[in-house]
C-alpha cells in the first residue's frame, strides 16, 4: 500500500538567480505548490519564469535560497529532485533523427521505468495526447504541434510527481494551441501529478491553473487563485477614453470618490473597476466633472487587468 505524501510538491523559499554581470533574473521568490495542484507562473518574457523553471530542473544554479521537489532539495539532492520530475521545455528539445517511440523509450529508460511498464505507459500516454499513430515516424517529419504533443507524452512516461511545462503553447498556431490546452486540461483528470506551468497567455493561466503567481522583473507581485485575483477588481471593468490628460482625469474622479485606488491609466484610457457603482453612475459623474469621454466600454476583468494594475504595463506589451 502506498503512503500518502505529506510534503509540498514544490517548495520555493527566497530563491534567487543573479547571472554573471549582475543581472538579477529572480529576486528572492517564495511559493509552495500542493500535490495535485496546477500552478501557473504568469508574466512576460524576461520576467524570470524560465529561469525559475531552470533552477527547479537543476539546469540553472540558484545564487540564493532553496527549492525542493517532493521534499528533495534541487541543490543538494539534484538526482532525487530530477527523478520525481519531468519537463517540457519552451523550445523543441527532442532527437529529430529518431522515431517518436525511441524518444519515449529513452526517457523511460533514463528515468528507471522498467521495460514492461514502459511499453504500457508509452501506449497509454501516446493515446492520451494523440500521437499514437505517429510513434514510429522519425520526429523530423512531425509538425510543430505533433512534436509538442510528443514532448508532453515523453514527460509523462515516467509518471512524474511534478511536471514542468515551460510555455507549452508558445509558437503554435491558434487551432493547435487550443487543442494542446485541451490535452493539458485532460492531464488533470488522468494523471495524479502536480503541474507547474509558465505562460504569458492569460487565458491559459485562467483556464488551467488552480493558482497563479504573477511574476514581474524577477519578483512575485501577486499569488492567488485566478478567481480571487479577478475578484479583487470587482465584477466589471469600465474603460473610459478621455480627450485630455488621462492621469489628471483619473485624479479628478478619485477626488470625487468615483474612482477607487485600484483604477489605472493606459494611454488615454481610464480603467475603472466597478464595485458598488454602476457604469452609468461613473459615466454621469465623469460628465459632471467635465471629462469628455470619447469612448466607453464595459467588460469583465481579466488577469491582464490584474497584471496591469500591479505592474503598470500589459503582459502583451512586454512580451
Amino acid at each position, binding site marked *: 500500500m*502506498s*503512503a*500518502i*505524501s505529506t510534503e509540498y*510538491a514544490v517548495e520555493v523559499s527566497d530563491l534567487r538567480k543573479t*547571472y554573471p554581470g549582475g543581472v538579477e533574473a529572480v529576486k528572492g521568490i517564495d511559493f509552495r505548490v*500542493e*500535490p*495535485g*495542484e496546477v500552478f501557473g507562473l504568469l508574466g512576460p518574457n524576461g520576467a524570470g519564469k524560465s529561469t525559475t523553471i*531552470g533552477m527547479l*530542473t*537543476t*539546469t*540553472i*544554479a540558484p545564487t540564493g535560497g532553496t527549492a525542493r521537489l*517532493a521534499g*528533495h532539495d534541487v541543490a543538494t539532492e539534484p*538526482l*532525487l529532485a*530530477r*527523478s*520525481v*520530475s*519531468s*519537463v517540457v*521545455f519552451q523550445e523543441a*528539445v*527532442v*532527437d*529529430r*533523427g*529518431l522515431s517518436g517511440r*525511441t*524518444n519515449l523509450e*529513452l*526517457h523511460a*529508460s*533514463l*528515468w*528507471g*521505468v522498467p521495460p514492461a511498464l514502459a511499453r504500457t505507459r508509452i501506449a497509454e500516454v501516446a493515446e492520451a495526447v494523440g500521437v499514437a499513430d505517429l510513434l514510429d515516424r522519425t520526429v523530423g517529419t512531425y509538425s510543430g504541434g505533433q512534436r509538442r504533443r510528443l514532448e508532453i507524452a*515523453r514527460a509523462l512516461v*515516467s*509518471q512524474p*510527481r511534478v511536471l514542468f511545462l515551460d510555455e507549452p503553447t508558445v509558437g503554435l498556431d491558434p487551432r493547435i494551441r487550443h487543442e494542446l490546452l485541451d490535452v493539458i486540461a485532460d492531464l488533470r483528470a488522468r494523471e*495524479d*501529478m*502536480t503541474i507547474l506551468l509558465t505562460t504569458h497567455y492569460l487565458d491559459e493561466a485562467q483556464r488551467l491553473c*488552480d*493558482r497563479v503567481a504573477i511574476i514581474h522583473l524577477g519578483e*512575485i*507581485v*501577486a*499569488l*492567488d*487563485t485566478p478567481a*480571487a*485575483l479577478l475578484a*479583487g477588481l470587482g465584477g466589471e471593468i469600465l474603460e473610459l477614453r478621455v480627450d485630455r490628460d488621462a492621469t489628471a482625469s483619473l485624479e479628478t474622479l478619485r477626488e470625487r470618490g468615483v474612482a477607487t485606488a485600484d483604477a489605472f491609466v493606459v494611454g488615454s484610457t481610464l480603467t475603472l473597476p466597478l464595485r458598488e457603482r454602476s457604469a452609468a453612475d461613473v459615466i454621469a459623474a465623469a460628465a459632471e466633472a467635465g471629462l469628455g469621454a470619447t469612448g466607453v466600454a464595459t467588460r469583465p476583468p481579466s488577469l491582464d487587468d490584474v497584471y496591469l494594475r500591479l505592474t503598470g504595463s500589459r503582459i502583451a506589451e512586454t512580451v
Partner: protein
Amino acid sequence: MATTSVAHPLRIPARAPRRAPLLGALRTLARRRVALTAHNPRQIAIPLMTPILFATVIAPALKAALGGLHSHIDYTAFVSVGTVGLLVPLATAFAGLSVIVDRDSGAQRELLAAPVPRALLLLGNLAVVVGLCAFQVGVLIGVAALRGATFHVSASGLFWFVGAALLFTVLMYAIAETLASRIRQQEEYIGLTPVIAILPWFFAGALFPIGALPGALTAFAKVLPLTHVMALLRYGLVDPRGTGLHDIWGMSNTTTEAFLSLGVVVAFTVALSALAVRAFTRSAVE
C-alpha cells in the same frame, strides 16, 4: 501580496523516486548515440577514407618512390599505424560536433534533466566513440595487411597497441568535448577541427621518424602526446625494437621508454578528461 491556499481534494500516493542503474543509464545513452550516429553512416565511412588511402595508396607509393625507411621497419605498416593518428582525431571531432548538434537542436536539455550523473552523458558518447574508433582502426589495419603491410603481432604488443589507441581515443574525445562545450557555433568548431585533428599529425612522426624534422621541431614533437601515442602504437604492432621510443627518450631500455611514454599519454588523458567534464558541466548549468 495576496494569497489564498487551495484545499485540493487530490492526495497523491507517494511514488518512491525511481532512478536507472548507472550501467543501465550508460547503456541507454550509448544506445541513443549509436542510433543517432547510425542514422548518418557517413560519420563512419568518411573518416575512414583518408587513412585507408594513405595506407593503401600513398604509403606503398612513397615506399616505391623513396625506398622506404631503409631499416628493418616495413614502411607500409609504419604509415598505416601512423594514420591511426589521423583517423582517431577525425572520428572524435565528428563526435564533438554531435555534442553541439545535441545542444543546439537535439535533446541535450532533456538529458540534463534526467536523474543520471551528468558525467555519464559524456561517458555514453565516449563509449560509442571508442567502439567506432576500434572498428575503424581494425578496418584500417586489416586493409593494410591485405595490401601487404608487415605487422609483428604478439600478446604484449597488442597490449601496448590497444592501450595506446584506447587512451588516445579518450584523450582526443576529451579535447573534442571541451571544444564543443566552449564553442557556441558549429562553424567555429568546424574551423578549429583541422588545427586540433590534423596539424599535430604532421609533427608526430606519422609518415616519417621525428628525427627527420629540424632540431627545434623534433623537440616540439617530443612534447606532443600524439608522438608518444605513435611510438607506442608502432612498438606494439610494427617495431618491437621501439625505434620511435628511442627517438623520444634516447634510453637503452625499451620497456622503460614505453612506460614513460604511456605515463605521458595517461597524464594528458586524465588532465584533459577532467577538463572536459568541467567544461561540459559548466556549459550545461548556467
